[in-house]
């Protein structure tokens, strides 16, 4: 059998093994490739830097554990930045599992800056209803938020009393894996109330947001694990996203080599038929 015939019929388990090695080896022996910063990520960072101390940032956790690998590092880096700049974080979620992920992130970051629940940050829990909920939230928060995620009255917290409607929100940052998510915030919140929206999405969803970046409806975007790594670099936090960049680089190179090999086989098969 010709060499290219053997390659064309290669057992896919060999492909799986090569991808597995491409991911695992750089985690054990890091390459230390530098992470370049792109404009959409820098926009988010610059906005947080520019906002006055005590600004209220609404953080919407709109993802589930399936997207945790890409979006949780971005959540940690963003919360770290907000707390370092002494901004107040008002967390909620359009996806139910996101609330627990958000709480875990708070438990990891808040103690580092001696932040106090109810004063510096709060979690008001999962809010169903998508577009209608966001329209109601922007008009009057009390119609949507009566308690925090533990069921305690929202007015018993100083931060809970500070946010009455969209005018009290200085920025919305949504960590979004799908629907409802970033598009809902842009279409129903930014378009209606004018509140600036920034977002972090999975890599596969990032290209879809570029029209909104271009029009200015989306202030900035952290796309996938790379976006999270860029933000970690900007805030000086070397963590999971940065560590994952070497693996992602090698895995992408391996996939591109597979594509090139597949097309070489295509050309060879055409020539053989002639």
């Amino acid at each position, binding site marked *: 059998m010709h060499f290219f015939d053997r390659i064309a019929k290669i057992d896919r388990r060999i492909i799986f093994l090569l991808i597995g090695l491409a991911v695992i080896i750089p985690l054990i022996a890091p390459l230390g490739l530098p992470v370049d910063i792109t404009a959409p990520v820098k926009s988010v960072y610059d906005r947080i830097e520019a906002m006055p101390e005590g600004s209220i940032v609404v953080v919407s956790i709109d993802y589930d554990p399936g997207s945790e690998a890409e979006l949780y590092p971005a959540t940690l880096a963003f919360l770290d930045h907000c707390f370092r700049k002494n901004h107040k974080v008002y967390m909620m979620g359009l996806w139910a599992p996101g609330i627990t992920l958000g709480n875990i992130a708070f438990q990891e970051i808040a103690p580092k800056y001696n932040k106090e629940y109810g004063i510096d940050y709060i979690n008001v829990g999962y809010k169903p209803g998508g577009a209608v909920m966001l329209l109601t939230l922007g008009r009057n928060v009390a119609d949507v938020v009566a308690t925090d995620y533990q069921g305690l009255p929202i007015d018993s917290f100083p931060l809970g009393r500070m946010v009455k409607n969209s005018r009290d929100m200085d920025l919305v940052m949504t960590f979004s894996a799908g629907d409802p998510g970033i598009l809902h915030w842009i279409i129903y919140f930014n378009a209606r109330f004018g509140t600036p929206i920034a977002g972090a999405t999975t890599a596969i969803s990032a290209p879809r947001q570029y029209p909104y*970046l271009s029009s200015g409806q989306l202030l900035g975007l952290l796309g996938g694990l790379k976006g999270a790594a860029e933000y970690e670099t900007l805030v000086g936090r070397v963590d999971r996203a940065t560590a994952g960049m070497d693996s*992602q680089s090698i895995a992408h*190179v391996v996939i591109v080599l597979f594509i090139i090999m*597949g097309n070489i086989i295509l050309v060879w098969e055409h020539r053989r038929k002639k």
Partner: protein
Amino acid sequence: MKRTLPLTIVLGCGIFMLIAFFVPVRWFQDASQTLQTWYLGVIAFFVFIGIFNLVRINVLKIQHKRRDWQFSIFLLIFLAGMLLAGFIGGPDGTVFLYLFQHFQIPLSATMFSLLAFFVASAAFRAFRARNPEATLLLIAAVLVMIGRVPIGVWIWKGFPSLVEWIMSVPNTAAKRGIIFGIDLGLISMALRVILGIERSYMGGKD
């Protein structure tokens, strides 16, 4: 009556909400706000309906010993376990957090991680330049894949700028066209539902 009443409600509410969006009259806005608050109450019930339906389907599967019925037992056990852990300990409960962090997160992440292997296999077998359009798509895909990771910068410093151009110009143009098409379709579908032409949401035969 069985069909007239729901169609009338949809027509009335649909036209009212449409007008309320554009009419800045206090009465209209308050009534619109009330309707939206009622909607949120109805939506909350859907969570219970979803859980009830999930339990019903899996119990029937176990009763009639349908294919893979054994997995339904595990599903119901873990569903009950998470519900009890959440109700007893609350969202910060030790057991609930342990199950979430050590079962749900790793299992969900694993399911998505499998995609990486299948994408690699598909890339080898299916990403072929069979015609000019496929070739263009392939070149763009390879450039973006390499340019979006740090190794792209290491290979050539101009890669990130090239990729940003691809994302900001041709990608944005194409996505914008698709978004316009989708939104025009959504407007058309919404009008069809409001006017009662589209009735699939009612179920049953027309």
